[in-house]
């Protein structure tokens, strides 16, 4: 299956890419997808451990499973407001 990965803020700057596709086994958990991403972009490693994840625009847990066509966003510590 194919999942869209979205990177924001410091993660995008570190990876120098905002969006990519990952081909993963059906029902891969979020944590495994993040490991795959960290292997491909080693510079993300330190920040990924401090980031949350969202599947299709809602916060997700590490063992939530991904499905074909999902959008997995990595959410570094948020700092909106002021």
């Amino acid at each position, binding site marked *: 299956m194919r999942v869209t990965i979205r990177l924001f803020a410091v993660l995008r700057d570190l990876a120098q890419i905002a969006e990519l596709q990952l081909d993963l086994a059906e029902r891969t958990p979020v944590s495994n997808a993040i490991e795959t991403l960290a292997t491909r972009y080693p510079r993300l490693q330190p920040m990924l451990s401090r980031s949350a994840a969202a599947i299709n625009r*809602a916060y997700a847990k590490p063992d939530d499973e991904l499905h074909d066509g999902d959008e997995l966003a990595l959410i570094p510590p948020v700092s909106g407001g*002021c």
Partner: protein
Amino acid sequence: MLNSSGDFIALVPNALKIDAAMVHLVDEHIGGVNIFLGLTRGEKNAAGQALLALDYEAYAEMALHQLHDVAKRARAQWSIVKLVIWHRTGRVAVGEPSVLIAVASPHRAEAFAACRFIIDTLKAEAAIWKKEVWADGTHTWVGGG
């Protein structure tokens, strides 16, 4: 931009204008309005450089969904007649507002409590990030060290 409750919620790429928000806060059941504006505050970093601006970036689809959800949770707790939640994207210079929240309620206690809840929840949860832009051209993501 209006949801089914008539709330005016938006991510805004240009300057936030308080009188544009006031236009939305008209209803004869309003007794108290509480407004919060968050501004870029001037400061210096460890290298003695002055802050010029904050650059705001949002995961827009998720952040908008979250702001509408915050509005819904506020309406479940307090009596709200009119509600505005605006957040800037892009560059916000020192002295300029990055966020504007306006809550119009029948009574003041509700307006104060809901406004405080919304800014606190927005800051803790919304998929929005800021980058500090310093006078020497360097920049740093807040929370990204």
